[in-house]
């Protein structure tokens, strides 16, 4: 448990959270490992968990019927995989697969939602962090969509 607390505290995502809030999070977290090629999430599955990547890279892929699967982003350490768990009942939208050996903190979405609702200060602190990451991802996606390298 002490190791898990240390691992959570080491993540910039949780910077600024006090020890009490970090201890609350530990109850919903566990260390997870994935081998290269292993799926963290599969599109269509219930969205009940999210991962904070500590080591390795995770691909986000879209399966398109009749066409080759498309990779839309590579997630690197410090970023999260899985946002849909915030809004139940939710399904995973993208396949998330380990490109390398991946070490991640996984958080049980049901457990975390319960604690966020019971402690609004914790809920606000986490929602703010998740929103910041989501905003950065949205900005990246917008830049990607501009297709700026296409010859005109």
């Amino acid at each position, binding site marked *: 448990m002490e190791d898990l607390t240390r691992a959570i505290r080491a993540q910039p995502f949780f910077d600024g959270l006090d020890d009490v809030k970090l201890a609350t999070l530990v109850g919903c977290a566990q260390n997870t490992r994935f081998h290269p090629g292993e799926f963290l999430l599969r599109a269509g599955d219930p969205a009940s968990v999210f991962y904070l990547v500590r080591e390795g890279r995770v691909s986000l892929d879209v399966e398109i019927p009749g066409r080759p699967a498309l990779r839309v982003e590579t997630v*690197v350490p410090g970023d999260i995989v899985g946002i849909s768990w915030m809004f139940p009942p939710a399904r995973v939208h993208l396949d998330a697969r380990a490109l390398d050996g991946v070490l991640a903190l996984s958080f049980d979405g049901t457990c975390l939602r319960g604690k966020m609702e019971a402690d609004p200060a914790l809920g606000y602190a986490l929602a703010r962090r998740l929103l910041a990451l989501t905003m950065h991802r949205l900005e990246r996606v917008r*830049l990607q969509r*501009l297709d700026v390298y296409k010859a005109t």
Partner: protein
Amino acid sequence: METSALHPLVPSMLRITRVRREIDDVFTLRLDVSGRPSGFPFAPGQFNMLYAFGAGEVAISISGDPGRPGELVHTVRAVGSVTRVIQGLGAGDTIGVRGPYGTPWPMKEARGRDLVVVAGGLGLAPLRPAVLHALAHRADYGRVVVLYGARTPADILFRKDLERWRGRLDTEVAVTVDSAPAEWPGMVGVVPALLHGAHFDPAGAVALVCGPEVMMRFAARELSSLGVAGDRIHVSMERNMKCGAGLCGHCQYGPTFVCKDGPVFRFDRVERLFQLREI
């Protein structure tokens, strides 16, 4: 730096010695400068006006090694009427060249500091001489980081260079693409996002950024958010250049002329212009 021609507006006729296709619409020309006593000296970041007979002139960055003035190298994307004519030329054909023009990357100012190179698409061409210079004078710089973004894996420019640079223990190289098939083992995402995983000291690093303007704007913002000051971020601007000598006004960019005052600018001096909808 002096231009190579007798008069800055008179092109020299140079023979193409080799043409290499880089990617689908991008090719590299090597030009014979053996007839010149000192070859074709230039500074990283400078450009030449290339003249295709009967078609016109176009400003093209020099993409070769500044430590090897015995060969002049240009990497060109065939997108307009002039560049398409140049694409049709081969070894033995002649092309008009005048230059070099423009301000260079601040390689002297960056000495003793970490060097962060952020390139997008064809923007790697004008940055290639800067990377080659830094690697040839490796002890002059701190960490050297090269971050490159392309449209797809098939659009990655100078792939062999990137592999060679990545193979060095003293250089950090990361490549990303905007989209890729699921079997692509590399990174997918925009090049500014690579800055967060790169290893350099933001407090002292000098950043050289080249690519589409919107990409440079995002990259400069990421660099700023990491703590790189605006006077240490340098961008290379592209405008429709005609004379190359600040006479005709075609490349006027607010109060500056890109061909004469640029193409390399300190970001804090042009940041305001990046925000304007029209200039």
